[in-house]
Structures are given as C-alpha cells and as structure tokens.
C-alpha cells in the first residue's frame, strides 16, 4: 500500500543524463565523484594562484585583505573537503568492489546519496563566493573569531552548514564501505588476502565514523552560538575558546590520516605492479596503517603547542607525535624494499608513486620537526607549517591520487592515456611543486607568519615568495597537460586491454571498462594477489570462467543487480535546501526538511522491479 502513495515509478534502464542522475552503480558513482572533485580541485587551485599572485611581490594590493582572508579559507576548505576526500571516495567507489570480487557496494542507493550530498555540500560552500560572503576565518575557524560578534555576516554560517552536509555524505559512505568490505568479499578472500588498498580504505572508513561526530558536535555548538545566542564559545559568558580548538583538532588530526591513508593504499598497489614484486611486508604495512589510525587520536594537541596548555601537556603530545613517525617510517621502508630486487618500469603511475615516496618523506621529516614542541614554538603559524602541510598533502595525497588516476584510467575509461604527456605532466608538476613549496621552509624560519595578505619590502622574504609563485604557476600549467591528456584520450584514445600493466589484483581480470555486473562469476580467491597467482605462479590453476564477459556466458547466469533510483538525489536536494534555509530563510529550510522526509520514506518503500531472467543480463 505504501508504495502506491508514490506514483513515481522506479526508473527502468534509464539512458543519457537520467542514467547518471539515477545511477546506483559504484563505477559510475566513482566517476561522478572523480570528475566533480577534480573540478573543485581546480577551483581550489585558482584560489591558490590568486594567493600566490598577491604574495609574489612585497607591498602589493591585488586583492583586499578581506578577499585574501576568504581566499585562503576557501582554498584550505576546498582542497581538504571538496578535493582530496572526494577524490579518495572516487577510488573507494570504483576500485573496492572490483578488488574484493563484488558486484557493487552493500548499499547502492546510499552510495549514490553520498555523492549527491557531497555535491550539495560543495554547492553550499562554493556559493559563498557568488553571495559575496565567503568564510574568512581560516579552514580551522578558531573561536572567538568565528563568533557572531567578530564575524556577523553569513560566510561562517555557509562554512558550518556545508561541512555538516559534507559530514553526512562522508558518514554514509564510510558506513557503506565498512559493511561492503566486511561482508561482500569474494569467497576465499580473508582479511589478510585483501588488497592493501582495501585495507587502507577500511581503516579510513572507521576513522571517518569516529572522527566526524566530533566536528559535528563542534559545528552544532558554533551554530547554536551564532544563530540562537548560545554561549559555548562566548568568553564574556565564561566560555573558553580553546574548547573549539580541542574539538576541532580531535577531529582534525584523524582527518589528516583520513586524507593520507587511501593515498598510501594507492601507492602500495602501484609499486608492486610496476616492480613485479609483492608488497614487502604486507602484514606490517597493514598493521602500520592500523597503528597510525589508532595513534592518530593521541596527538591532536600538537596543533596547540602555543596555546598555553602547559609544559606537561606539551611534552606528552610531543612524545606521542614523535612516536607516530615510527609506523609511518616503516611504511616508507617497506615501499623501498618492495622496489628492491624488482623489475621496475617507469610508466606514469609509477613515476607519481615514486614521487610520492620522495615528497612525503620530506613532509614527514618537517612533521617531526614540528613534533618537537620548542622548535614548533618558532614554526607554528609560519610558512614552515605551510611547507609541511603541502609536502604531505600535495606531494603526498595529490601525487598518489594522480598516480591512481593514471593507473586505473584504462580500467574506468576503457582507453589508454598518452604516456609521453603523462610523463611530461609528472616532471613539470614535480619540479614546479618543489620550486613552490621548498622555499616556504625558509620563509617560515625567517619569520614570515602565515595568513598574511601582505609583507613589506626589506623583510628578506621576497625571493622565497617569488619562487613559490613561479612554482605554483608551473604546477597549474602541468594540470593543463593532464586535463588535455585525460579528456582527449577518454574520448578518442586507444582501446585498453583488460590488464595493461600485468597487475596483481582482481579488477585487472575483467574487461576495461568492466561490464555493469563486474564479474560473470564471483571469483574464488586462493591467495593474496590472487590474479597474479593465477597468471604467473599456479600453472595448475584453471583459467577463471569467462571473467571478461563473452556473449554466451551472460545468458546462463542469474545476476541480480541493484536498480537505479530517483530518491537519493532528491534527498540530497532536500538537505541542500535545508542547509541554505537554516541560514537565510526558515521556510525554505522547512521545505527542504519536508522534501527530505518524503524522500526517505519513498526510498524506504520504493518497489523493486520484479526481476525476470531475460531483463537482467546486461
């Protein structure tokens, strides 16, 4: 009866744009995430280029200080929440079900919902530019600067609401992937036979589930202060603004591991493939990832060494932070040992993976410098920190993401990218990156604070800033090469074979791109790196039945696929209206809430189209 209330029929074989709007296929959702996040990454890059243009010379006034403050706030928030995290999600989506031998994730509509809600959060945040009211208090938004008194316009509210919406998207995705990885692995794939990327994704998803509630609470408290006059962070009423910092960084530090662990997972897949050797010390790498995630909860106050928490607190957090360098270093050494004795090929994904090791090591070393609290007292809030974060987030996460895009490009697009352009992209980006960010170590040690829109001639910082700007534009140029390569070859590139890299994991055992149902038969897994084992080592192993999807194989199997649905995007739309409405107009908010409630109800009760054997094999 309930399903009769909603006359909207569930889509059946939608085509064109509707097939994207109603898709619940993890492969399409992965592509949606990847393309959207990459465009947002470019927007964050434009924000960075404007920052660098302003700082290229001393005493410049290309932008006002207010706009500059909005630029660095939006750049940081965009890159972390709208670029790196969703690019990670793109890989979780596309790769995990293929690597574990599943047909899709555990909750396909929830998966689509995660994407559309991410898009809603992105729209809320980026619209702040169009509303001439972008947030301006930095990506970590310290109180009391974000209070209604110090910051009366809506920019901060847009920041808060967008992060809440993005949090919903992230949590939904995290739950989805945990259940998928725990429950939907192919028979024979024990946890210790799982690809390392799946392990890192599982750990990341657990971190997401535990960390996001903390920032959700902090954001609610800030909203209550700003909108309803509460006093969580209001000093005049007796509050301690340091509370915000504790809440934020208890989230914020695990967040940086959320950013880097998937990247490490990608690199851990690529290095073995292109050296034709297994990952050295797979159990140790898994354990190191888990230890990093666990210890990541014990280090947050290293962001607060100058807050005056006292020498005991500072000493404890200095020690825990230094400790976390140990499992991180173990991973780096395991990667190098993977290469040792291998047969190394320098295709573009491998170049980026090697670049990751080189750059992330530098970022890790500067991280240990910050861990030592007395030296951090000079480095905190200077360009030395900016250098560190970009070595680990750009030299680390972005390099790994680029590696992953090139690596899995044949699989998701069915085409080969142009190898020479890929290499050119790598070299220009790497050189530009180091020219841009290495000098920042010096600017910082020479006393240049961060988040300043202007500096005077004669401070001794001119050369470093000019170099940083030149490098930034070089990086931007390298991305033009990347975009050209990907876009032209996605349309017109050479067809890709199933397994162009002679790789090790299950996604390479099926066609490029995979059929909608992924595997004709769910594979039975015997070892870690089962696909490699099948190809090279186990000559008695019977070839897997028609994994690529020959026409005859299709007819004989009852493959039930999840069906497309309208309700995820409608629910996300409702949440977006709720978000905007909370800030600007409670009626719009009410409308959004109503749409959301209807969507949840309809989603729960929507019919499953009666499966008939002929209609399913496609």
């Amino acid at each position, binding site marked *: 009866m309930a399903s009769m209330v909603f006359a909207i029929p569930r889509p059946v074989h939608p085509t064109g744009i509707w097939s994207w709007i109603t898709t619940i296929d993890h492969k399409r959702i992965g592509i949606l995430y990847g393309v959207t996040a990459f465009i947002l990454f470019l927007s964050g890059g434009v924000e960075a280029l404007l920052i660098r243009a302003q700082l290229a010379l001393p005493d410049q006034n290309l932008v006002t*200080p207010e706009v500059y403050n909005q630029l660095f706030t939006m750049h940081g928030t965009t890159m972390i929440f709208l670029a790196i995290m969703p690019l990670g999600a793109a890989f979780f989506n596309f790769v995990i079900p293929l690597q574990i031998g599943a047909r899709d994730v555990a909750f396909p509509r929830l998966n689509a919902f995660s994407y559309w809600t991410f898009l809603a959060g992105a729209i809320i945040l980026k619209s702040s530019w169009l509303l001439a009211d972008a947030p*301006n208090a*930095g990506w970590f938004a*310290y109180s*009391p*600067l974000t209070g209604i008194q*110090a910051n009366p316009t809506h920019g901060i509210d847009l920041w808060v609401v967008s992060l809440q919406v993005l949090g919903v998207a992230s949590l939904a995705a995290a739950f989805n992937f945990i259940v998928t990885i725990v429950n939907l692995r192919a028979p024979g794939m024990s946890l210790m036979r799982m690809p390392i990327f799946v392990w890192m994704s599982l750990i990341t998803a657990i971190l997401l589930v535990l960390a996001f509630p903390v920032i959700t609470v902090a954001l609610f408290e800030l909203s209550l202060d700003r909108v309803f006059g509460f006093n969580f962070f209001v*000093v005049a009423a*007796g509050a301690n*603004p340091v509370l915000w910092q504790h809440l934020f960084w208890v989230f914020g530090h695990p967040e940086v591991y959320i950013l880097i662990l998937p990247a490490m997972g990608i690199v851990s897949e690529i290095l073995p493939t292109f050296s*034709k050797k297994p990952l*050295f*010390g*797979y159990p*140790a790498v898994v354990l190191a990832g888990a230890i990093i995630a666990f210890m990541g909860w014990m280090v947050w106050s290293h962001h607060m060494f*100058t807050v*005056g928490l*006292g*020498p005991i607190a500072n*000493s404890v957090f*200095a020690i825990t932070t230094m400790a976390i*360098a*140990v499992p991180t*270093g173990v991973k*780096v*050494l*395991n990667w*190098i*040992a993977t*290469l040792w004795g*291998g*047969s*190394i*090929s*320098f295709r573009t994904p491998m170049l980026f993976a*090697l670049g990751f*090791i*080189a750059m992330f090591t*530098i970022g890790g*070393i*500067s991280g240990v*410098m910050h861990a*030592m609290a*007395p*030296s951090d*007292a*000079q480095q905190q*809030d200077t360009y030395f920190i900016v250098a560190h974060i970009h070595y680990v987030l750009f030299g680390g996460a972005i390099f790994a993401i680029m590696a992953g895009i090139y690596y899995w490009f044949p699989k998701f697009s069915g085409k080969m990218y142009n190898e020479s352009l890929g290499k050119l992209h790598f070299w220009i980006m790497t050189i530009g990156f180091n020219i841009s960010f290495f000098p920042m170590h*010096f600017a910082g*040690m*020479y*006393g240049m*604070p961060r*988040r*300043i829109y*202007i*500096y005077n001639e*004669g401070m*001794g910082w001119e*050369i470093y800033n000019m170099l940083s700007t030149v490098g930034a534009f070089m990086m931007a140029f390298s991305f033009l090469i990347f975009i050209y390569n990907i876009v032209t070859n996605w349309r017109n590139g050479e067809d890709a074979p199933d397994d162009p890299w002679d790789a090790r994991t299950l996604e390479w055992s099926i066609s490029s791109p995979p059929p909608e149902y992924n595997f004709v038969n769910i594979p039975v897994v015997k070892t870690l790196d089962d696909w490699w084992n099948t190809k090279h080592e186990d000559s008695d192993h019977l070839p897997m039945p028609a994994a690529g999807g020959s026409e005859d194989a299709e007819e004989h199997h009852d493959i039930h696929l999840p069906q497309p649905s309208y309700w995820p995007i409608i629910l996300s739309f409702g949440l977006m209206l709720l978000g905007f409405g909370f800030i600007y107009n409670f009626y719009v908010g009410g409308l959004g809430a109503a749409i959301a409630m209807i969507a949840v109800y309809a989603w729960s009760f929507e019919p499953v189209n009666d499966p008939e054997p002929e209609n399913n094999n496609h």
Partner: protein
Amino acid sequence: MTIIPTYVILSPVVGDINSLESSSKVITKKLITLWVLGHRRLNKFKANFKFARTLFVVLSLLVVSVFSASCVGFGSSQSTFEVSGPVAQNQLNLFNIILVLGVIVFVIVEAALIYVIIKFRRKNDDDIPEQTHGNRTLEITWTIIPALILIIAAIPTVSGVFFAANPPLSADEGAIVVEATGHQWWFEFDYPQYGVHTANEIHIPVDTPVIINLRSDDVIHSFWVPKLAGKVDMIPGNKNHLWFQADEAGEYLGQCAEFCGVAHANMRFRVVAESMEDFTAWTEHQLSEPQEPIEPLASQGKSLFMGARGGCMACHQVRGTNAMGKIGPDLTHVASRTTLAAGITKNTQGNLKSWIRNPEKIKPGNLMSANAPIYQENSDELTEAEISALAAYLGTLK
C-alpha cells in the same frame, strides 16, 4: 661509509651549542655508526657499493651546500636563526638537532630510492623477479632504530619545553614583568612594577629575564619576537605567559602570529633592548606627563585632538589632559616610539600625516577608520591644515 658524510653534515653545526646538545649529537653519531657497522647486509652489495656511496656523498654535499647557502647567505629582521636570547637559542639548538637527524634520514631514504630505481630498472619485459614477501629481522630492525633515535630526540625536547615555560627568575627576584593585551589590531603593554602604560613598543633591559603575561581583549592573537623566543598565544579569558631575555641591545621585530581578522598582517610591535640605565630612564620618562605645546600649529592640533572636530580623545589617552579614552592605543608618548599603527610604518611626520589623512589606506580594516566619526561618510574630511596640526601635536608627545 656513512660516517664521512655524517661528519660533513655535523661539522657546520657543531659551533655554538651547549653541552647537553653536543652529547646527544655524539650519542646519535655513535648509534649511526653502530647501525652501519652492524648492517652486514650491505656487504652483499660490494660491487654496487661504490655507486651507492658516491650517490650518498653527492646527495649529502648537495644538501649541506643548499642549507648552508640558505642559512648564511640570506637573513631577515625576523629570522629564527639569528637569535639573541637564551629561549630562542634553546629552540634553535633543538631545531638544529632535528635538522641534522632529518637531513640524515632524507639522504638515506632518497639515496636508497634513487639507488633502487636505477639498479633494478626493468631490462627485460619477461623477467619476473623473486617474489619476496618480507623479512622479519629487517622489519624489526628498521622499526626499532627510528624509535631509538626519536627517544633520544625526546630528551632535549622535553627539557626545552620546561625551559621555555619556566622563567629563571620570578618577578620578586628581579625579572621584569610586562602585561601584554592583544586587541584587534594592536598591542597594549603595562608594566605593573613601574606603572608604565604604553602600546606597540616595549623596552627591556639586556641580560634580564622578562616575563610577558599574555591576555586578549577580543579574539586570539599571538605574541612573537622570533629573535628572542617562540610564540605563545594571547587568548581571551585565559592567562598565558612566556619569558625571554635579550643578550644584546637592539630593536627586535615582533608580529602577531595567530590569524585574528582582517588586519592581522598589520599587527606588529617592537622590543627595544637597552642598558639598565637607559631602561630605567625610559620608564621614568614614560611616567611623565607631556608639556603643553608651545608652537601654534601643535597647539591647534591639540584643540582638534581634544575637541569634537577630531574626536580623538574618545578613544585615545594622553595622560595629563582630558583625553582619557581606553579603546585605542595610549598616545601619551607616541612620538617616542619608532613605529606607528602597530609596528607597520616608521614614525615620521610624513607617515603620521598619511596615517591621519587616510588610515584605511595604510591598514585596511582598522577600527579607527571603521568607527571614528571623522572618517565616516557623513563627516567632512580633515583638511591638510588640520592634518598638519594634529601631526605636529602628536609630534610633541615625546
């Protein structure tokens, strides 16, 4: 063979460190030596060793030259390398320790990376190398060694934390105390021991510990004089402190180092270290009240300042007059300061006039432009004559 490059790296830094630091360096060097000697696996690769060693030495020298050139060749008035006091020196020493360790790790890791990608590059597409899965001994060793190195690094870290937190003398024992309050976007300073009240510039005697108590009136700021000490935040509602000591006389640059709003970049200050006699003279002078201006232009300026036209007395204090405003910086001895507008321009008559004429241009977002009636749309702008008069008056407030 790692001893030679290690020594090369260590030698530039061995210069001016105290004994705790040098003994931990010695221990570190010994550990590295032990590690190298115990690492018998390296013997297996004797044939390739020459190449690896060359690579290692080249990388080490490259790194050392880059660092030396950058550290020595360029400088800054806010450099954390050109320290002038024990706290900053302690912090720099710690940085140097981790810099050496970091460079060693960098060279080892990057050399290993470059070595493997050259030595093990693919020569034949059909080659399948031995599928090594791991090596327990190696993995345990390379977990323990970094842990030991970090444990050693933790010792000067913890001692440095306590060193910076605890002034060697208390206020009663001879330390100078300054109460610093951060405002958007200027620094207010009080000397409870002397009764001095001023803004944006403090004087201290050399070779004397100075305790700065840190407060804020609005949002979080940070007090940072890089050549004297690392920063500590000024948090409204909280009581923080730091201490430092200047070993040499001179003028030290300070800057707010916690993002505090639109004019954060323009919130700076000065610390002037001088002999005890000069310092005492300064405090006495700061307590004195200014004389009535004699010169007619300055006298005019005073009337403007105190009257409705300028309205300055509503926010600023000039002791000994009717100007008792507490919202903006105290101007009683503004002409004695080296800078204006919170450390951002030199204190000259020309700059003072520019500031009075159009403060928004010099320090966009400042609260004087935002709030003072004279700068609002509905008011007549100050004329050049009025500006000269005001500047002349302020110039008498030495």
